[in-house]
């Protein structure tokens, strides 16, 4: 249903960041996009959600289709209304609004009152902590609570596809577990497809059915999640395991070796 076809993205009309990225997310699927810092993961999500245009970025080649319709020339607010919602990196929320107001902003594009109330209850069952905090000013929540809030806000839009940008960033393992459990439930119970960008390959490959690996603005590897989990490179560079099952530092691995294996 969501198809990215060989796109090229340029910032400020000169900085070429994505060079021929293709990926697909089918109905009800969880797909993950892995890659090191600066690989172009966020840029890929922003190209899909249209937010690229708010940062002087542009899809200069290729197409993006959602449910058969081209969306790569649409402004972000219209893409959301089609059912593709991005949860931006870094827990972006309306700091001066309360938790509940933040959640309700997610439903401002809808007008079905009764359903909105229902969905709010659903968010509170997914994240009971948010219910206790509903009258708090969002800016003062902890990192984990803020991550729950931004996911909850996206849910309030009743999206068909949710684009999640590093939801585990900087959170304690237990909180990550809780949040990923909810992501799984959103996918199962609401049938929402999910494109998940992560640095934490372990949790990402656990939850996803398919994965892509990005480097330097290109997809260098893709396959079913269970295959990627067994892939030696992934084990070494993303899961931090050597063949012996020992932890290995990222820096020890020579750059040329990575490139060679993935590109070759």
């Amino acid at each position, binding site marked *: 249903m969501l198809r990215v076809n060989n796109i090229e993205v340029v910032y400020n009309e000169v900085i070429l960041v994505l060079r021929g990225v293709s990926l697909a997310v089918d109905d009800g699927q969880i797909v993950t996009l892995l890659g090191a810092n600066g690989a172009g993961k966020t840029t890929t999500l922003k190209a899909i959600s249209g937010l690229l245009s708010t940062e002087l970025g542009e899809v200069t080649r290729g197409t993006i289709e959602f449910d058969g319709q081209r969306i790569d020339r649409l402004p*972000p*607010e219209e893409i959301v209304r089609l059912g593709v*919602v991005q949860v931006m990196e870094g827990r972006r929320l309306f700091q001066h*609004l309360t938790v509940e107001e933040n959640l309700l*902003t*997610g439903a401002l594009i809808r007008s079905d009152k009764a359903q909105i109330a229902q969905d709010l209850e659903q968010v509170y069952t997914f994240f009971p902590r948010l219910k206790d905090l509903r009258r708090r000013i969002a800016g003062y929540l902890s990192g984990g609570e803020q991550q729950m809030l931004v996911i909850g806000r996206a849910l309030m*839009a009743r999206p068909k596809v949710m684009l999640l940008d590093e939801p585990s960033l900087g959170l304690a393992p237990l909180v990550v577990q809780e949040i990923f459990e909810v992501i799984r439930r959103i996918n199962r119970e609401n049938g929402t497809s999910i494109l998940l960008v992560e640095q934490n390959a372990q949790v990402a490959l656990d939850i996803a059915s398919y994965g892509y690996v990005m480097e330097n603005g290109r997809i260098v590897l893709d396959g079913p999640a269970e295959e990627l989990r067994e892939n030696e490179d992934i084990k070494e560079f993303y899961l931090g395991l050597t063949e012996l099952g020992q932890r290995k530092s990222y820096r020890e691995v020579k750059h040329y070796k990575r490139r060679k294996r993935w590109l070759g």
Partner: protein
Amino acid sequence: MNWALFPQFFVTGLLNGGPIALVALGLVLIFKSSKIFNFAQGHILMLGTFTAWWLLTQAALPTWAGIGLALVVVMLMGFAIERVALRPLVGQPLLSIILMTLALSQVMQGGAILLFTAQQRRFPQLFPLEPYKLPEITIGETTVRIILKQNLVWSFVIAMVAVVLFALFFQYTRMGLAMRATAEDHQLARSIGLRVNHIFGLAWAISGVVATVGGILLASLSGLGLELSIIALKAFPAVLLGGLESIPGAIIGGLAIGAIEALVQGLPKDSTIRSMWPIAPYIVLVIALIVRPEGLFGLKRIERI
């Protein structure tokens, strides 16, 4: 100062501040949502008030119909200004946008002269004239008397009702929520599907309406002419005093400006300070900004890592 007169001047000043607070509220609304400081605010309300005058006197509409229709006209004007004059400037340097609002103010000045001529007009009386007398209070030697013009009291009451209506709208409706969200973060607002251009337009429309309510109240107190636009010059220190982005700040700033002016006017006749009353608000503003640069009610930035 004659202390027995102090309460009289203070209360009169506060009441005078009501319409200023409305104009200030409009300025803050536009600034909050789009970070544009609208130098044409005074001219928008002047045009709106002239429209109301025309509808009431020339077209002889009943009071409520005339004023209601004038407010609709200003609302449309607000949407039109955003659409035609400002949207093309999105992404341009702030200075161009500020100059655009200055240019707009001159265009509207010209428009007002063409449509309504530069003649001074008498605005229809909206309220009864005979004054209210508050009960006298005697403290020791001095007897405090407060006499209030009835139209001044009513104009204040209406200004405050307008403020409350706006606050309810802003706090409790979906559109108000959309405006508050947009005010915080344009990119985030777009990422949740808000059409921020429409929201800017709405801000201009509402801003014009509340300011025009202020303008009509002022005109009914002291007549109507092109110089009505100058009222905005009093609203500028009011919003800066309140902190540019704070709605309660704008209201309190407006009332404070009214009170300060009146108190300085209440000084003894021969004092030099008294003759400075028109600039008194600015002097207070300068002092206040030196002490608290973010304004008295400036938003605290929430810093969390």
